[in-house]
């Protein structure tokens, strides 16, 4: 904001912005609710339809359904809402390159997460499929949303994840959900060494559950936090 405008127009602008923001927050709340519901549905629906389905017992099945559900809902919502930055060229070829680039980014992030998890001490060879599934889940919660909102644009990513880099409430929500899912996964690793011998202590169940819970919590926290801090949040215009 350049402080060249008169005080009156500045307050008007702020007011406009606040109302704008309120609408946006409402949109975000509904979008986040749909995503959260999709996770709940991914847990309930298979339990009804499939025999011997349980989150612990057939964990990988749940994980895949959950991942697919969240991914589909995310992509659908953000294409409908059109949050992603407007592109100059709207040709088919451009879209194709964008989608393929996004896929590449997604794959890359899965591998990166896999690497980090292995560095954290996950077994290298045994249960590699479980580790990779966990990496895919984490990527869905974090990278996929980034791709939906920011597009495959490295610069924008660096901007959003550097300090004070958020330019819209979507950026802030992205920061919050990403951080909360990663922290959830991180906290989820703590019960593993405990010798309670519970079914959910098996690798990677506690971590995936932690990540999921963290993500859901992030979905709810983000609009609340933005609402709470809407006065302080001033975003630089693009």
């Amino acid at each position, binding site marked *: 904001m350049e402080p060249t405008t008169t005080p009156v127009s500045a307050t008007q602008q702020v007011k406009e912005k606040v109302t704008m923001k309120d609408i946006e927050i409402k949109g975000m709340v509904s979008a986040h609710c749909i995503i959260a519901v999709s996770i709940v549905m991914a847990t309930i629906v298979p339990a009804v339809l499939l025999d011997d389905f349980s989150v612990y017992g057939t964990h990988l099945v749940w994980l895949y359904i959950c991942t697919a559900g969240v991914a589909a809902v995310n992509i659908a919502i953000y294409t409908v809402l059109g949050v992603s930055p407007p592109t100059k060229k709207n040709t088919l070829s451009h879209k194709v390159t964008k989608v393929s680039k996004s896929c590449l980014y997604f794959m890359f992030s899965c591998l990166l997460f896999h690497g980090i998890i292995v*560095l954290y001490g996950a077994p290298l060879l045994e249960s590699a499929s479980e580790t990779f599934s966990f990496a895919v889940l984490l990527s869905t919660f974090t990278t996929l949303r980034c791709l939906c909102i920011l597009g495959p644009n490295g610069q924008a990513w660096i901007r959003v994840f550097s300090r004070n880099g958020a330019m819209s409430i979507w950026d802030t929500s992205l920061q919050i959900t990403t951080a909360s899912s990663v922290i959830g996964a991180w906290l989820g690793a703590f019960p593993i060494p*405990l010798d309670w011998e519970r079914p959910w202590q098996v690798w990677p169940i506690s971590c995936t559950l932690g990540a999921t819970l963290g993500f859901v919590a992030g979905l709810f926290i983000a609009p609340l936090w933005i609402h709470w801090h809407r006065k302080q949040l001033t975003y630089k215009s693009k």
Partner: protein
Amino acid sequence: MRIRSSVFASFCLIMEVFGIALFLRGYFPLPVKSSVSAKSKVADLPTEPLAGNVANWTKIPPPLFKRVVIVLIDALREDFVFGPKGKQFMPYTRHLVERGPSHSFVAKARAPTVTMPRIKALMTGSIPGFIDVVMNLNSPALLEDNLMWQAKNAGKKMVFYGDDTWLRLFPKHFIEQDGTTSFFVSDYTEVDNNVTRHLDTTLERDDWDILILHYLGLDHIGHLTGPHSSLIGPKLTEMDDILKKIHTSLMSKEEEGSLPNLLVLCGDHGMSETGSHGGSSEPELNTPLVLISPAFKRKVAFEIPETVEQVDLTPTLSFGLGLPISKNNVGRLILPVLEDNSLREQLRFLHLNGFQLSRLMRDSTPAYEKDTGYEQFRIAERSHGNWMKLYLEGNTSEVLSNMGKKVLKQYLDALKSMSLSLSKQLGKYDMYSMIVGTVIVLQVLFLLLVSVADALSSSAELDLPLSSSLCSLPFYLLCLMFSGVHVMVCTSTESSCYFCSLSWALVFAVIVFVSALLCVILSIMGRKLSWGRPQTKSESSSDSGFSELDILLLTGTLGHVLSLAASSFIEEEHQTWYFLLNTLCLAVFQDVCRKYFSEKRSYKDLEDSLYQPSKDELLTSDYTSKPSSTSAGYEKWLALATPLVTLACCRILRSLNQTGVQWAHLPDFGHWLNSSEHHTELSLLAATSLVLIFFLVQRRCSMVSKIALGLGLLGVYSYRAAVGNVLFPWQQEGRAISKGIVEARFVYIFVLGILFTGAKDLLKSQVITSDTKTKSRGLWEVYSGVVLLAALLFRPHNLPVLVFCLLIQTIMTRFIWKGLQYDAAQTTIMHYWFGQAFFYFQGNSNNIATVDISAGFVGLENYVEIPAIFLTAFSTYAGPLLWASHLVCYLNSETDRSSAAMGHGCYCFALLRSIPAAVYIILATSLRYHLFVWSVFSPKLLLRDAYVCDSFYLHFLHCYGSKPLCLVIGPSKAKQSFFHILAITWNKAVYYVDFNVLNKT
């Protein structure tokens, strides 16, 4: 009084060490004893209970067996006899167990599973507490009432061959003896041959009643190669042959009309999956117990053996030999042994056992009459009397035998619950000493916490209101009050109290100190509160919030401390540290990214607001700035790679040694390297590691130390080759193995030489010229001396740990700590974390069993106590020690950037040490009744609790061990006194002595 932070921190640490020492003295309880030297006498034995006045048995029952041979095989695991290994390698014994006249049991040993407490347990029937492990440095003669004494007193002639621990415990008890020392763990044939060579002549003779054989070979094999090695099989077969020889000889001596003989096969403790012992995992606790005698019925098939306590053997043997049960016995008679005796005899034995237990209970518990076991025993005694009356009246009906069985059952129940409650109150804690110790530790902690702001200020000085509080009234009042409390406590308690037994001057000094500290803390807090408010406001506005890294460092440290409340987290503490370390690396990575990517951005943003240039222009400006500093770009990528390299190193080290409990059995790289097929790989790895160590360390040394270091590292390799761990390319496998004394001493000379040059440089910088360059070089030389010593003591497969340690230190110093300008406090916490993680990377855990005692024998001809303790302690704590010494070097080189760095680092280190220490003390106090309640909990819980005890024990050691290091960081003059500090460390490691002594087996 204004003092420097470093002096203050050192002072706090000294006080804390004192507090912890006092606490520990009170914490390790003395085991239950009715009295130390009292012995059971035959005359004290009760008569058979009887409701009436007919003559009955008043004397001790006659012996059941003529001769007893006890074959004790060290570290004989239960599955070596009863499992598939036994079937394969011990055919004769298995045959006896399955078809012969025998009784087999699984005897559960108690932690600590080391030889001497186990021998004591077997012979006295009591359960030695952890204090026995700590206190028995010199293995003094056993004064308690015990089976050996009773046997000697009854005129039994005893012969002993085997581990000389017995000879020290029972001097002058044996008519013939031959002790084998077990100094060299690598010897597993000679030790046993030295026992077996006497066997033929002894078995032919008739002049003995009890023969005890203690074989050590199996334990040595376990220490060397683990329970699954190929050496185990032949050893078990050898033992089987010995048993066969003894058994046939005993059988041939068996005469009609005389009493039968008894052969006892037992183990003192088991062997963990890695081959060591000392902890309380199932394989370490479960030992076989096979009693073979013609008096027993022949078995028809293999039955799964019952579980008994190891101490149950004591009363059983006492009865078998016709001796009174020793006074402090908590074991119960193994009833199946008496299955052929009449019901009357069985009841008589049970009554005697119960009587002894009730006596012990009466002597050790004040409220013994309310104990259920005691009541049950009284009831059983009464019904026994009634039964006796009927029996003596000649009643032989069904009713009588049913009633007898009922009495028997009552006795068994009573014995069980009495034994339980006796082992439950195994220890009384010296609460007063514990409280005083805790108070001191907590006060020191509070003092440190209260003065955080001052000590970490830029001047690194703090103002202690010492004189004002020493002259204040509350100080004198407190002194008076504490003295009053002391007198009251000491006069009122009946039980012995360590703190009360101290001399008056010392106690008074402690009281004065405690009250002075309290006054100081209160006055500092008062000062903070009175004019703290405006200050805190301004502070909060000036440096608002911590960075993510600060938050991580704080929450990680605190979270780790809190996690110690759960025993699993203690068992798996390494997981916590690895996890935190990884997170730290990622956080550092984020910081680096931020520095190299978004700093540029914010710069750009600034430009944005000024000129609003287009993106293309920015890019070009970026380009133009780059060529001017290609080295900076190079640096940037290296800095970016550093945390990732560290992460990769940590991951590799993690798979080098599996520690902990739950996953300790998993195959790891260290085992792979140590197996005999991979000699070449191990040699290559060791050689490369040594070369890398040289290159990483030498760059900051003087020429002399460089050469000394190179030769020293060569010496390390030749030592390992001489010992047989690694190969020279020109050597053939299977050549003679020596102890490598010459080579090791060669290295020691260079270590001393390097330390000497370092000390000389330090002195020079201190006395002649105050030259920081000489000083930092001197420090680095001392550091490289430490590295060389570590290289010598580390097992060859652990040398990569040293390499990675040095590598991480080098690159982190170069690119992260200097590059990102972390302050002294942050660097200290990071060093502390790394040090903790490296403690576990070395393969240590919170279990005594993982201490590598072989390090104590490097370059020593014989077991020499002090050097052995020092070397063992050094090699165990090498990780934290190396990081702490590196911190000293680093902070010293940083002093030009901020003069207070050393003070800050020192202070942080003290704080980091005292927080866990205080928390451990409180936790240990609150968990104290869990630790020793052996029998009440289910076996699993028992296992865990024993473990907690173990780990607390080591934790104390741990915080102890590396604490004095801070003194190194402390006043920079203290650097020459490195030896002095190491002396403190090894003083603290006195606890290892017991371990060394015990582990001579």
